[in-house]
């Protein structure tokens, strides 16, 4: 009966209930949208590492991310191959370059040079062509989402990157980097663009034999290459994300907007719920006189907060899903890992309950004797 009464009261005070629900929707949508954008950006940050297919990455000494291209001797590749834990080891050459657009303007790009024939660290999603097109020394791929930025190149167009002629051989689909437009190329072309000599490379990608123990292998690699660092793929990805989040201020910026969204929602919830209780003081006094304990009143308001929270969460996620589907495949970074929505919903419900605190305080302070005035 208490819960029934709680719901009837919400339905009766439609305007303020709608206001409270709006507060919840604001939190779910604004914060959810921020989280999706941030998580999209974060996934860009380490996309090369995550999708490399390697178990272990070798980087330069004192480099724990792949923001800056490393500088390693090529002979490390052969040394690594001598370890019996290792299935394969391939160099990666990263080079910054300027792509000359058809209209003569220059666009900075990040060239990822892949070693033939394995093409480790290469692109994984294609709109046109496949990874085989990169076997050609002159070939590069550009991404569908970058076509406009790059002046609208088409397959088989010949372009210049930092004065090096390359041919667009394929179009990747939705492969977005964080620190610049990604262009995949052969190892040789990347060397030309970045003026990287034949005996150096940026990183080395390693995969282990199925029976190898990663920790054991890592220790052996570190002992073998004291002039370099070795990380598991997951470690390097995390380090890279952390680097960008803390060093670029992007973490702070997103944290602030998210906080602002939460505050707006919480203020709306607190004010509307408090208003609702103020309007219902007489009802609570009567219920108290009839025999309701403070805890019963608290339960009614708390239940109302939960109902408001659940409805607002449903509507909010509905809108958020609409937004995410609407922006899918666009240049707007967005991704929603499945663990986010349940946590976000739980967090919002907790906020809603906390936000009802003031209303609950007011409602439980109502004196039963005031029903007689």
């Amino acid at each position, binding site marked *: 009966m208490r819960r029934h*009464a709680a719901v009837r009261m919400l339905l009766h005070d439609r305007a303020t209930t709608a206001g409270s629900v709006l507060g919840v929707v604001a939190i779910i949508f604004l914060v959810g949208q921020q989280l999706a954008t941030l998580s999209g950006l974060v996934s860009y940050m380490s996309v090369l590492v995550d999708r490399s297919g390697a178990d272990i990455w070798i980087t330069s000494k004192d480099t724990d991310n792949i923001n800056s291209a490393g500088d390693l001797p090529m002979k490390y590749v052969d040394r690594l191959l001598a370890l019996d834990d290792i299935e394969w080891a391939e160099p990666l050459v990263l080079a910054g370059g300027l792509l000359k657009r058809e209209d003569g303007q220059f666009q900075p790009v990040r060239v990822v040079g892949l070693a033939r024939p394995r093409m480790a660290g290469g692109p994984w999603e294609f709109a046109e062509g496949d990874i085989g097109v990169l076997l050609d020394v002159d070939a590069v791929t550009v991404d569908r989402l970058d076509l406009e930025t790059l002046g609208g190149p088409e397959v088989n167009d010949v372009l210049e990157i930092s004065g090096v002629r390359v041919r667009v051989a394929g179009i990747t689909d939705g492969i977005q980097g964080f620190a610049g437009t990604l262009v995949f190329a052969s190892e040789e072309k990347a060397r030309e663009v970045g003026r990287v000599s034949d005996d150096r490379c940026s990183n080395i990608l390693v995969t282990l034999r199925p029976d190898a123990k990663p920790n054991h292998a890592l220790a052996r690699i570190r002992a073998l290459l004291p002039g370099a660092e070795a990380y598991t793929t997951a470690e390097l990805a995390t380090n890279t994300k952390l680097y960008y989040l803390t060093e670029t201020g992007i973490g702070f910026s997103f944290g602030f907007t998210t906080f602002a969204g939460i505050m707006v929602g919480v203020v709306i919830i607190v004010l509307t719920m408090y208003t609702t209780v103020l309007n219902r003081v007489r009802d609570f006094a009567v219920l108290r006189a009839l025999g309701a304990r403070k805890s019963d009143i608290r339960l009614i308001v708390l239940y109302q907060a939960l109902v408001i929270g659940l409805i607002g969460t449903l509507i909010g996620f509905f809108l958020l899903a609409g937004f995410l589907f609407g922006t899918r495949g666009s240049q707007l970074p967005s991704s929603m890992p499945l663990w986010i929505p349940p946590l976000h919903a739980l967090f919002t419900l907790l906020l809603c309950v906390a936000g009802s605190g003031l209303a609950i305080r007011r409602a439980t302070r109502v004196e039963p004797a005031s*029903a007689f005035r």
Partner: protein
Amino acid sequence: MAEPVVRLKGVVRDFFDGVRTRRVLQQTDLDVFPGEFTVLAGPSGSGKTTLLTIMGLVLAPTLGRVVIAGEDVTGYSEDRLATVRLRKFGFVFQTAALVPALSAMDNVLIATGVQGGRVTPELRKRADTLFEDLGLKEYARLSPAQLSGGEQQRVAIARALISDPSVLLCDEPTSALDVDSSKLVLDTLKRLSRDPKRGVVLVTHDPRVFPYADRLVKIEDGAIAHDTREIGGGDE
């Protein structure tokens, strides 16, 4: 005489009005007996509501003891008092004081369910019977706003009776009603007071209510001035 359903012993109530503390209820002893229609009468501001709410465990006395059906409840916690109110008392307020968000029927049922009690089929049946007895049968699903003042007050009486209380406390229940509705409500309360297990206390400043009283207690300036039984038209 039967055991009193409510016994006040040396009850006093002070109020602080912002400037000084005022004794609104002088030291008072009063027993309320079952099967009797007790009318508490007195001018406005004389302390009737204060006395009634102390009897109903809604207001704590500054001094004195309150005994409900033999159980001394003085010093009980707020929650325990609420539970005694729920079990033993029915309240009818000056205005019907129904919850506007609830239907007439739900307003009655909430009175037994405020502490989380379930609405059993027996309770529902009891509520139906009450609605029928009070001539409210076709109003059960309506919201309070759809009822007249008299109808609302009868719903409030049904609400006061749903848990079959041993004391029914009414604070000027007819002051907001027209003559016909008043008569209907008073007749109903009078009929209810015939139950030998239940005491009915009604507070009023309206002398037209006096003829209904089995016992008339007059209050002036926070003290009992007269206490007479008028059964059969005469004093005891």
